[in-house]
């Protein structure tokens, strides 16, 4: 009589246990720095590992997942990770259950919206866990499982597709588990490189690792209250700008460059679009800041502008400046960038530059069709034709994305939140950015929002991270029909 076998539970249990292991690692870090403050992490780890393994042991290993099972698995896995990942904040008695859940899902979805107004008051273990959860969520917990557990086989591809950002994930190797391994290897490699560069800039090991963990997944959690701005070092800021930019690039492209095909970014149309969008935004923002005299010298203007543009454009959400005090035009540019996001196949959020670029090209094609009503025209991205089905998927995605954003603003406003804050929070949540506008700007936090607002934002974060369809499909009545 069951619509679904217990296959989803088998994998979700595994992922919850894996989250438990990650919390245990954070506990060890906490133990080294703060001693007994790490206890809540170990308790959480024990609960997650125990319950996860029980769920896993009581269910049979799935042979092949059906399409519906894979969507259910991915969504449940993310919810499960967020719920169990929230335990340390609650058990450490630093957050109410709902706040803890908000912080946790904000971490896993790489949003970086925080309820803590002063992270520096938290213990090191908790801070480490906050950034580790982002780092795991960045490349994807499912992708990690697929990489480690080749038994998923064919079903793995469905899970993979449901989690990896972008309309069609690139296959780098014939087997999906090999592809997942490559992506994770590149991810780990880039993170390590950033840690080394941070260390060379004089950061402590803890600061270097946590900030790299916040940067590569385009997350944005910083253990420092003033975020990257805490380090008054142009070097650290430039390194961060570079790695935020790299995190927004398709990881398949990183792989090709690392394999020696250095010219491949230049030949990649989406990469050019991504870079040009950021470049144009940078010119406008630094121009406006220069005219308004926000900063006294040119380099500082450029650096602060570049940092905010890349941070928001790649949906990271680190801050070195409070852009809420900047000229309005720059704020508008930054909010627009929230919707653009990183490249498909990157760790960035937003709608992804591939979708936007394809939709723009389709727009031009539609214009030309008005001139030639009988013409048969196709839209090409990177020389490859985007077929009608994929194009409709992209356009519907963009519509649903914007619709979710508007619904979010509406609901937040209905709770009595002012419009600017509501719009900023909704965009920052669905785009997985973190800081929004008004009351939730770079220097603000989310703790003061009503509980209902936190739930709405949490839902938007998950929608944004799993690219809408994966979550929304569960709400369709047909999904539950046998």
């Amino acid at each position, binding site marked *: 009589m069951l619509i679904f076998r217990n296959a989803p539970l088998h994998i979700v249990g595994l992922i919850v246990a894996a989250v438990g292991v990650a919390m245990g690692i954070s506990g060890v870090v906490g133990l080294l720095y703060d001693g007994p403050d790490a206890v809540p992490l170990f308790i959480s780890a024990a609960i997650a590992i125990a319950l996860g393994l029980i769920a896993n042991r009581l269910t049979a290993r799935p042979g092949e997942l059906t399409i519906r099972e894979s969507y259910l698995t991915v969504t449940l896995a993310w919810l499960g990770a967020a719920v169990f990942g929230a335990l340390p904040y609650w058990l450490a008695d630093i957050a109410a259950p709902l706040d803890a859940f908000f912080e946790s899902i904000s971490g896993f979805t790489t949003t970086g919206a925080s309820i803590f107004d002063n992270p520096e008051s938290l213990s090191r273990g908790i801070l480490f866990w906050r950034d580790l959860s982002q780092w795991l969520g960045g490349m994807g917990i499912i992708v990690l499982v697929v990489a480690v557990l080749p038994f998923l086989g064919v079903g793995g591809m469905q899970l993979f597709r449901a989690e990896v950002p972008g309309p069609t994930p690139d296959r780098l190797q014939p087997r999906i588990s090999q592809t997942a391994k490559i992506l994770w290897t590149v991810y780990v490699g880039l993170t390590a490189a950033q840690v080394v560069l941070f260390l060379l800039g004089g950061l402590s090991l803890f600061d270097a690792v946590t900030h790299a963990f916040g940067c590569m997944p385009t997350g944005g959690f910083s253990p420092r209250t003033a975020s990257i701005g805490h380090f008054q070092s142009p070097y650290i800021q430039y390194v961060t700008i570079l790695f935020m930019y790299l995190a927004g690039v398709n990881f398949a492209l990183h792989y090709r460059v690392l394999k020696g095909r250095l010219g491949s970014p230049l030949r990649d149309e989406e990469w050019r679009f991504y870079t040009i969008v950021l470049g144009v935004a940078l010119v406008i923002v630094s121009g406006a800041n220069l005219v308004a005299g926000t900063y006294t010298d040119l380099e500082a203007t450029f650096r602060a502008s570049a940092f905010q543009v890349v941070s928001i454009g790649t949906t990271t959400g680190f801050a070195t400046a409070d852009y809420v005090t900047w000229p309005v035009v720059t704020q508008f540019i930054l909010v627009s960038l929230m919707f653009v996001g990183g490249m498909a196949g990157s760790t960035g959020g937003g709608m992804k530059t591939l979708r936007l670029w394809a939709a723009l090209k389709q727009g031009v094609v539609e214009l030309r069709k008005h001139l030639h009503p*009988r013409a048969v025209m196709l839209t090409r991205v990177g020389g490859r034709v985007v077929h009608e089905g994929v194009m409709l998927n992209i356009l519907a995605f963009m519509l649903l994305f914007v619709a979710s954003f508007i619904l979010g603003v509406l609901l937040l406003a209905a709770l009595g939140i002012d419009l600017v804050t509501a719009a900023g929070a909704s965009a920052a949540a669905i785009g997985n950015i973190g800081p929004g506008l008004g009351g939730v700007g770079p220097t603000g936090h989310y703790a003061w929002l009503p509980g209902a607002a936190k739930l709405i934002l949490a839902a938007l974060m998950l929608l944004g991270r799993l690219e809408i369809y994966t979550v929304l499909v569960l709400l369709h009545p047909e999904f539950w029909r046998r």
Partner: protein
Amino acid sequence: MRILIVGAGAVGFHLAEHLSEEGHDIVLVDKDAERVAHAQDQLDIMTIVGNGASLSVLEQAGIEETDLLAAVTSVDEVNLIACMSAMQHDIKVKVARISNPEYFTEPFRLRNAQRGVDVMINPELECAREAFQLLQSEAATELAFFAGGRVQLLGLRVPPEAPLVGRSLAEVAGMMPDRRFLTAAISRNDETIIPRGDDRFQADDQVYIIGESTQMPRVLELAGYPEFRLRRVMIAGGGRTAVYLAQILEDHGIDCTIIEADRARCLQLAEQLKKTLILHGNATDMELLEMEGVEGIDGFVVFTGSDDTNMLASLLGKSQGVRKVVALINTIEYIPLVMRVGIDAAVSPRLSAVNTILRYVRRGSVLAVAALRGIDAEVIEFSVQPGCRIAGRTIEQIGFPKNSLVGAVIRGTEVIVPAGKLALAHGDKVAVLALPDAVSDVERLFQ
């Protein structure tokens, strides 16, 4: 020469017919008994029913005595395998017809010797190239190039208002003292003449001029054609030839539109061609043609699969004032007729294929061959090789056959308009126009 042709389709049949009429021994192989029987009835050739890719069939067809193998079925793989099978025997030239661009453009990766093919011909590509050349000049009904493009044969129709109407060849020559071209043939009322100095040009003459390429603009001026630049081309019919032509046009930055009736094919075309505008509709749909501005285009090319449609659409295009209309005509017998009803030029993949193969069939030192379409004649480019009887003798002394004419002599970088007193030398390249009955005599001279 003994020639083995694999494939009795349109190309194979026409090739067999052409070569057989020139006195070669032809064996034709095809697996379709009906086609073979048809060829047997029509032509004086030997035929075999069987798979031309199989060595035993080729042996049955006398592969060991064959001088040239032409595998021209419509299936690339069969043609390739036929040539590979024939590798065991010592055949001078193995020609394969290859239409798939992947096989055609990859010989650089797989050397011909490895696959046993000496020459690959792509009829559709050759035809598209020819159409492109024809499109570039408003007047040209036919075009052929010799000596690496330095010498050009230009066929054109003389309009009634042309400056040269009513003048004799000698008078026209007098108007241009530094002239380096001559009138090689005139076709008038179904009759082909090789003109002499006192013959006069008449309106609607189909004239063949051979000479230095750089002088052709002046020839066009004399013939009453104003300057012409190809900017926009419309192609009706989206077959393989159309795709090749569109690619060539795209490469030259010329605006190109294709009209195709089949929607699924339209999608394929849109996928293959990046800059070309693809329209879904019929070649003869006046409303569509007008909507897309047919009157503003420079060249209209009709490449549908049906000769009837092609002729009708071409006439429609001409009636809309398109300056240059080129039609694809598959039925070779129609071609002279097509030009007479006012369509500017006709091309045919079959003829293009045959032209390419002919070059390898010729005896002696043939460099290039162009079989003309408006008249039954060929222009052959020879080189004068050491030990050749005619070297050192004047054209008068050599005594070329009656129905032939020496059109141009290329000596080093110089193009010479031949006169009776000109002596030929080693290393000269000579372009000769010959009617069918004179071809073999001319060839013998150059042996």
